[in-house]
């Protein structure tokens, strides 16, 4: 499909009508003037045929709006660049076999929810036996040696333990994201990792509901995993990344389910 252009617009009632819905609050009391402000607000976003559907008195000095309008935005879908899948994700047995054959020792991973974050459900989903959405956690893989340190673990402690265990990969989970605390925390982790010389050596992974591969890379991690990640995605990623580090797989290999 690449090459040939494929323009798309929002679809409301008919193809390419561009209709979208918005809601927002403006810090003004409900009035005709407030409604006009909402209309202008949407016009400033470039919407056409703005219909201020609802203007609700959220409080004495706040008005909540629901708006419909037409976005005059057309995208060329063919030009959107998202890495193509290269090879198939391996199943549980196949992956264990691959480690046995190619790595030839158990892969050691350590994970934790760091900082003051106590949301363990996500990291547990990846590491613990029972896994997530019917997919086994890393603890269940005979060829993984997985340690889950739980929550509220200081970055320093996680890194120290990883050194002790000679971890191949460190998994950091960050769920609280208000005012980008996950980014700050992620950056701080990378700083410590660098100081300990782990960066480039150990595989460093970040995960959480507001994490994506791009963000994780920006922060200095090797990869990032977002909502809906399955343990097997992570297991596959780690094994291939390790084989690459060991020089046993080419750098430009990709697999299905890898963070995009």
């Amino acid at each position, binding site marked *: 499909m690449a090459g040939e252009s494929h323009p798309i617009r929002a*679809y*409301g*009632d*008919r*193809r390419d009508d561009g*209709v979208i*819905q918005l*809601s927002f609050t403006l810090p003004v009391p409900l009035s005709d003037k407030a409604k006009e402000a909402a209309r202008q607000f949407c016009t400033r976003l470039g919407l056409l045929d703005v*219909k201020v*559907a*609802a203007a*609700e008195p959220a409080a004495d000095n706040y008005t*909540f709006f*629901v708006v*419909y309008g037409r976005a005059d935005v057309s995208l060329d879908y063919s030009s959107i660049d998202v890495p193509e899948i290269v090879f198939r994700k391996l199943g549980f047995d196949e992956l264990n076999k691959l480690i046995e054959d190619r790595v030839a020792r158990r892969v050691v991973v350590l994970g934790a929810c760091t900082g003051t974050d106590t949301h363990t459900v996500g990291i547990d989903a990846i590491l613990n036996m029972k896994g997530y959405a019917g997919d086994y956690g890393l603890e269940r893989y005979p060829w993984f040696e997985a340690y889950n340190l739980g929550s509220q673990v200081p970055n320093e402690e996680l890194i120290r333990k990883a050194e002790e265990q000679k971890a191949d990969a460190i998994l950091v989970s960050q769920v609280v994201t208000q005012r980008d605390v996950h980014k700050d925390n992620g950056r701080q982790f990378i700083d410590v990792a660098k100081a300990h010389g782990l960066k480039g050596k150990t595989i460093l992974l970040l995960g959480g509901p507001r994490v994506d591969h791009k963000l994780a890379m920006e922060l200095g991690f090797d990869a990032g995993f977002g909502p809906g990640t399955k343990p097997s995605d992570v297991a596959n990623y780690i094994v291939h990344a390790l084989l690459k580090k060991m020089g046993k797989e080419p750098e430009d290999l990709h697999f299905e389910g890898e963070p995009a």
Partner: protein
Amino acid sequence: MPGPFVDDARVAQARGIASQVIEPVFDLIRRHTTISVERTVLRLFGMSDAGPGGIPLTNLMTDRLKAAGVLNRGAAYWYARALQLGAASPLDAVERIAALPAGKLAPLSAEMEGNLRAEVRREAEAAVDELRRRIDERDALRREYPMSPAPHRYVIVATGNIYDDVDQARAAAQAGADIIAVIRSTAQSLLDYVPHGATSEGYGGTYATQENFRIMREALDAESRRLKRYIQLTNYSSGLCMAEIAFAAAWEKLDMLLNDAMYGILFRDINMRRTFIDQYFSRRICALAGIIINTGEDNYITTADAYDAAHTVIASQFINEAFAKRAGLQDWQLGLGHSYEIDPHRPETLLLELSQAMLIRRCFPDAPLKYMPPTKHKETDIFFSHAYDVMADLVAIWTRQGIQLLGMMTEAMHTPLLGDRYVALKSAGYIHRAARGIDEEFVVREDGKIANRARFVFGKAMELLEECRQDGLVAAIGQGRFGDVKRSETGGKGLEGVMEKSPDYFNPFLDILEGR
């Protein structure tokens, strides 16, 4: 478990009164025909094309016969005569009739007349057999891909363009819809003909044409196979062409039709007599074709207040049922209409709505029932409106509605966007899954507000039925008893299309449909 609320005997009594209410109307129906019934006869014979200027051949022919004052002998009769004159095709028949001022056709001998009728009756039987064959095909597909359990989730598509409608209907089916309704253009009810061919320009809906029916059913057949779940299709047998549309729908294998004995009168200002006669013939076709009808009592409580007028819905349902039964429809075909329309700013509306829905279930235990979501009190605050719809989803599963129109969070603004339908279907899926079986968990207290309200509403419905029996249905409508709308027997559109049947009126299809 909808409570008993009222004795079985009282329910039976209501049913009895309703059948007495419609008796005088049936006299009228028996003695009259309408131009649109006659057009339907011609369609049943296979006259489905349009002539020059897009005017349907059926209209060309019946207008001609009407102008000549002879349509009251039955279009079938003149069709027979045209054949006898050697018409080779429907268009040819029309042309021959048009050429020969009907009055001038010499009368036939009794024997010839008898033969002619016998021959045409055979043709009619063949036509009905062909129709039955098509219906069997539809039913076979329905058996092959069983439908999801009720409440069947019904959503509308209304883009004005049949091809956009197909797109949206497919999307809706994939998102969980069980029934697709193609809403008609606002202008169509008052057209005294059925537009022809595929159409792409309607307002607030898409024209109901036989070709549009075909296009949509074809798409849904394909989708049913793909999803392994039969998707039903419905449209409107309503307005000035009730019976013709019923025929087109039956032929094109639709599954349901909006079809009410009084909606046209009240909400479209169509003449009463015209409506009563048309609905009878249209329902006879539905009965034959295994089409479920959906009645329109829900509309009453968009013009009248839903709390005050609750009883009018029940009374009308008994009347609609009586009309339907007289037209040969079975209980499973009665999608009697009602809706979740009580002003949500009142207290205890969930109790009131449950009461009403339970009472209706109790009165019509074997009918699928058609349940409409809130519409009138919908707000443009889509989040509120969505919550409001969720409660209707709950009442629907609780009272085992057969057909549930899903509420749209944008109801107060526009016909549904693709995304609106997705949102509604996902929520309804959740609510139905979460609450299925809730009716078996509780016993309604007979001394509670729900039961007391049900008894009160039923009592008022009985009074109204009684009034209709005593003063006549026509008078009750004249008093604005239904939907706060007043209509007179000779007012409204389309009276000119009503004719007293001549003594030798001929309509072989009516005989077949009535089982004669």
